[in-house]
């Protein structure tokens, strides 16, 4: 029915006593997700939301008590790496970093740790993983999507919301929606996500939303060309933007090798993906 999370997923929130962590934890709880615990060093032993969710000092204590397998990271950027490494160490299967702007070299260390573990990192700067009607491991507005059989992946969080709204208006449901985050160094990329959707019997086509910069779309194009059997519909934002307009949005040291949206659209088109000229065109390209 979905990838990464399902109805048996047991979610914890790292940073559950912070302003954003607390408010989104409550929304997840109210929308029926299985939020089984949270961490906040120094506040272990307390309970959140009228005794509904226990708080622990460490992820280890939390996992021992709750058997959690998904963690949402809400802690501030300066301690986010520590929080993510802690979750990897405790064997959390899917770690979603809502936190953005994690220091560059911290992300490099996290990438090494992830590659040596069985954990998957989604983000940083991810809106989460969302299975409509079943579980919302993140900050998606809960009523934005319908359950269905289309998988959705997007680098941009806001464009992910946009796409969900457009699909919902067209009556098209979603198996899983995933925001990968658009920070300079990311965890899971399009390729891994496409592989997971390919293996998921309840997803029969995939919508992929990309943008300028990075080479994740090119790797996706190779996969679509060589291995994918399910139809992939893509929208790549920023086709008309000049390099001068795009460059300021990236770290100085990344600017030399920025890939344009135009090149990505060409590669995906050649690989056999269906190309949407705008988000509004996406529903018409879906078989339903």
């Amino acid at each position, binding site marked *: 029915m979905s990838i990464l999370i399902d109805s048996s997923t047991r979610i914890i929130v790292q940073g559950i006593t912070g302003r954003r962590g607390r408010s989104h934890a409550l929304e997840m709880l109210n929308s029926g997700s299985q939020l089984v615990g949270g961490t906040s060093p120094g506040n272990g032993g307390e309970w959140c939301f009228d005794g509904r969710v226990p708080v622990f000092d460490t992820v280890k204590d939390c996992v021992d008590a709750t058997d959690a397998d998904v963690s949402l990271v809400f802690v501030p950027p*300066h301690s986010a790496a520590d929080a993510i490494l802690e979750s990897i160490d405790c064997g959390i299967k899917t770690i979603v970093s809502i936190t953005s702007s994690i*220091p560059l070299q911290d992300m*490099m260390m996290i990438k090494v740790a992830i590659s040596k573990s069985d954990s998957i990192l989604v983000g940083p700067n991810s*809106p989460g993983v969302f299975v409509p009607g079943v579980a919302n491991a993140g900050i998606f507005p809960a009523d934005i999507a319908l359950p269905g059989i289309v998988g959705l992946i997007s680098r941009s969080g806001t464009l992910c919301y946009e796409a969900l709204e457009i699909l919902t208006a067209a009556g098209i449901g979603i198996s899983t929606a995933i925001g990968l985050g658009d920070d300079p160094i990311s965890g899971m990329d399009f390729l891994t996500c496409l592989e997971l959707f390919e293996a998921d019997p309840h997803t029969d086509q995939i919508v992929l939303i990309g943008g300028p910069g990075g080479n994740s779309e090119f790797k996706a194009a190779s996969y679509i060309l060589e291995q994918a059997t399910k139809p992939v519909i893509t929208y790549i934002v920023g086709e008309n933007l000049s390099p001068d307009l795009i460059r300021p949005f990236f770290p100085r040291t990344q600017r030399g090798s920025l890939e344009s949206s135009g090149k990505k659209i060409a590669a995906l088109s050649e690989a056999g993906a269906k190309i949407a000229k705008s*988000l509004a065109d996406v529903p018409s390209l879906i078989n339903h």
Partner: protein
Amino acid sequence: MNLQEYQSKAILRKAGIPVPASMLATNAVQIKRIATEIGYPIVLKAQTPEPGRGKAGGVRIIHSDHEIEYISNEIFKIVLNGRSIQSILVEKAFSFVKEYYLALLSDFDKGTPILRISEAGGATCLEPDSFSNAKTYECPIDINFGLKEYEVRNLVTKLDGEASLWKQFQRISLKLFDIYRQLDASMVEINSLVVTHQNQLYALDTKMNIDDQSLFRHEEFAETCQPSNQNFAKKQARKFNINYFDFPGNLGFVVNGMGLAYLTLDKLTQENLIPGPIIDIQEGPSSGSIATMAELLFSDPKIYAVVVDVFGGMTRCDELAEGLLLAEGKNLQHKPVFIRLKGTNAEKGKKMLQSRDYFSFYETTENLMNAAIKYLGELG
């Protein structure tokens, strides 16, 4: 954040990497005194964190006293990206037999540091094409394990250099990696790394970029990223963890997330228009920080109208509305604000804003941008 050359050179010198004798000056009198001390010929090098000083005439060789006044005046007149030159590095001119490029860079796709060595001395990593015509070698580095001598050897033995240089390359590369790690740099570049007539490697010029997201743990750069080095808007934005991009057009933007920014800009570009300042509030800012940033748009006479395109997830549209009202309340001069609010608490946000008759509301980004573009067109 880019460091200036004199700062980067001081870091290299402290690490024990050979650099030419140099001193910082802020006027012609100081330059003359330094020249007398280190001897002609000297090189005057404009100090700026902005790229492009070479092309702008900011690096000049001087052979005698009487050139100093005139040439230093020319250098002090250079403005790069709106920043004037405050100081000049006075350096002993150096003759050499060969130039190399040596750098610790960040591979954003793989998420590793990389060491790059090239015979394209003088090229820069921002112009990747210049490396394709010369021998260029690189290797990824395990961030935890560190750079090893053999990894450097694997690269330098492929260069057309003498074996006597290999040990120097190893030593300097390892020191560069230490600098990269200790300073949380995203780039540490020596360009050119020259071979002297005595067969010694010297760092003639260097560029360093410190990762902006790591500045919180680097007290030593607190001075460098002070307001005198940055405009007010950027300084405020950094304080609030908001992204601020300065473009010269007349339409200001408030968006959340780069995806929406690209979407709105794409529409603008199709009409051959350029954006004004873009404020990306990212996820979850407070109404107070939104107010401070939005006020910059409302109070700037260069901005004729403001576009607000926000799809709230963690960002709550009612908090955004509160921020806009706070900002708007401080300014008597009203300008049109084109608004699209979606997602978390969008209806509540719209209700809060509806009483202002110069705020107009749209359902899609396309309609929003069409209205804003039409308004700009009517102004001429």
